[in-house]
């Protein structure tokens, strides 16, 4: 405007001024409208702009955040992808290591409190290192014998006390309590020994012990160990060798070849054998019995160690050696062959000499064993020697290997536990003492019902059902073969034909 007035003042034409006057209102209107627009932007629209700007800023910030997150995730993915390459294949990852450490810490915590191991350890510490335990066996059964028409139940308990006195010394005592048929409870102490290990190859045993002759007395007689209920004839009622002795043993083993190829020895000395001699035929209770001199008879029965009066001043000697020729690695099974001898004076100057051979073979489900025994007993006067022979062979087979066709598979578990058995045993002797030998069957040593014959032969069939390694239900049928020959040395009568006797025994036995 100033410019325009100056032009007007300094020489502008009238036409120019008129045009200017006409254009002025338009210019004013235009300027006004323009001013209006500008002022609108300045008030309401500028708030919107700020808002938009803020939103843009927000979006930018969000985008930046997302970008950072994506970057972070990408880094993680890369790290994960790299991991297998970084860690050697068999090294635990960091997480696993952490877990392992935690586990270890936990295990240590648990162990420190009461894990079974630490608990057992603590109990042992509390009770002392060397301890006492009771093992042994028990049997209850039923016996039927045709000849003597006997039906009876029978109960036997044989606890064994083991007391570990030191790392090298063990005390063992067996107490036998039995309730035999038709009798009151009877207690015996068949074994009481102290065992001391001198070194890896020798051990001393002192006390009352099972005769280590052959395999039977020491290794096969306990209820749950014997596959049958009865003893084989040579170890039965009229045994050839005494069942126990009191004295001293040295024993040990030596590995001469590969693992399992061993030889073992037992040498011992004891009080020696004794025989029942107080047989006065015809004397019956009530006492006082008329006095009669005791006389030795062919076929006398041996007495248990508890009754032995040491008749002689000479101890008896015994020796046994067993060899196991098959190495464990060969997987040919376990074979044992052994030889034994037992010699002692049973009366001043009069000897009982005996020897025996035995074998035992076991492989898988099959088990066989057998023994041969020969004994020579010198007799006083002109009676003639009391020589005897005895033997047995037996075999058993677990049906675990048998799968009959068409058998339901659920029966297999039952079949596996059955063990059918067979045993043949026999004794030869010149005579037997009628009043000495009980023809009443009983469990264990006098179980064979017809042993009164000097030429006894017996077939035993057995069927065992094993609930567990030492829990068994046993069934046994005994067939006594009729055998003529020999005489009764107390009555002098000839034995003649022996009745063909049968017996059935059933027994539940456990080893604990």
């Amino acid at each position: 405007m100033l410019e325009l007035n100056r032009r007007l003042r300094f020489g502008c034409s009238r036409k120019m001024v008129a045009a200017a006057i006409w254009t002025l209102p338009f210019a004013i209107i235009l300027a006004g409208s323009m001013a209006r627009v500008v002022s609108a932007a300045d008030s309401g629209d500028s708030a919107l702009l700020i808002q938009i700007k803020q939103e843009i800023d927000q979006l930018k910030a969000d985008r930046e955040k997302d970008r950072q997150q994506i970057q972070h995730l990408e880094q993680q993915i890369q790290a994960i992808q790299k991991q297998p390459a970084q860690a050697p294949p068999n090294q635990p990852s960091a997480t696993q290591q952490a877990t392992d450490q935690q586990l270890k810490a936990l295990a240590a915590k648990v162990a420190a409190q009461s894990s079974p191991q630490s608990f057992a350890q603590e109990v042992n510490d509390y009770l002392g290192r060397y301890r006492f335990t009771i093992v042994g066996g028990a049997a209850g059964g039923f016996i039927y014998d045709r000849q003597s028409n006997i039906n009876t139940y029978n109960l036997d308990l044989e606890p064994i006390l083991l007391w570990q006195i030191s790392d090298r010394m063990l005390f063992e005592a067996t107490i036998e309590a039995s309730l035999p048929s038709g009798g009151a409870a009877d207690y015996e102490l068949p074994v009481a020994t102290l065992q001391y290990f001198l070194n890896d190859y020798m051990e001393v045993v002192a006390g009352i012990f099972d005769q280590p002759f052959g395999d039977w007395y020491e290794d096969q007689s306990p209820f749950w160990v014997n596959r049958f209920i009865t003893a084989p004839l040579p170890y039965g009622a009229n045994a050839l060798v005494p069942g126990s002795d009191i004295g001293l043993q040295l024993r040990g083993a030596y590995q001469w070849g590969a693992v399992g190829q061993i030889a073992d020895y037992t040498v011992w000395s004891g009080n020696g054998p004794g025989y029942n001699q107080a047989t006065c035929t015809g004397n019956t209770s009530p006492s006082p019995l008329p006095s009669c001199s005791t006389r030795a008879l062919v076929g006398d029965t041996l007495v248990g160690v508890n009754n032995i009066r040491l008749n002689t001043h000479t101890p008896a000697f015994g020796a046994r050696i067993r060899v196991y020729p098959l190495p464990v690695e060969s997987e040919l099974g376990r074979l044992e062959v052994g030889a034994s001898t037992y010699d002692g004076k049973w009366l001043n100057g009069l000897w009982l000499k005996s020897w025996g051979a035995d074998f035992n073979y076991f492989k898988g489900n099959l088990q066989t064993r057998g023994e041969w025994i020969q004994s020579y007993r010198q007799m006083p006067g002109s009676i003639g020697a009391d020589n005897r022979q005895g033997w047995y062979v037996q075999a058993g087979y677990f049906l675990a290997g048998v799968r009959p066709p068409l058998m339901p598979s659920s029966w297999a578990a039952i079949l596996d536990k059955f063990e059918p058995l067979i045993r043949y045993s026999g004794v030869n002797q010149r005579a037997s003492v009628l009043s000495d030998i009980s023809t009443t069957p009983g469990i264990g040593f006098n179980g064979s019902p017809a042993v009164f014959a000097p030429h006894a032969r017996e077939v035993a069939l057995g069927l065992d059902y094993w609930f567990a390694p030492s829990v068994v239900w046993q069934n046994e049928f005994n067939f006594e073969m009729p055998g003529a020959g020999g005489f009764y040395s107390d009555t002098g009568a000839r034995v003649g034909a022996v009745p063909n006797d049968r017996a059935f025994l059933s027994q539940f036995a456990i080893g604990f």
Partner: protein
Amino acid sequence: MKTKALMFILVVAAGITFSFTGWAQTAGAQSAAEKRALFMRGAELWPVYCNTCHNARPGPEFSPSEWNMIMMHMRTQANLPAQDARAILEYLKGSR
């Protein structure tokens, strides 16, 4: 005469044997590897040795301290070589 001979034998035997190193039921300090080797040998022997007279009795039937006593009993009963008895003991205690 016989008694004197026996005494002589016993004295000589005892003299010889006491001069050996002793047998300890629980063989003292052993490395883990030795124990492992014993265990393996025991696992191999157990079904063979322990089945010969009766059915083999498994480890879980008895506690470790009971096994200590029972293996002394069985070592006598079966005349087991000492090293084999130790291996079986290790196996029985370890397989519980």
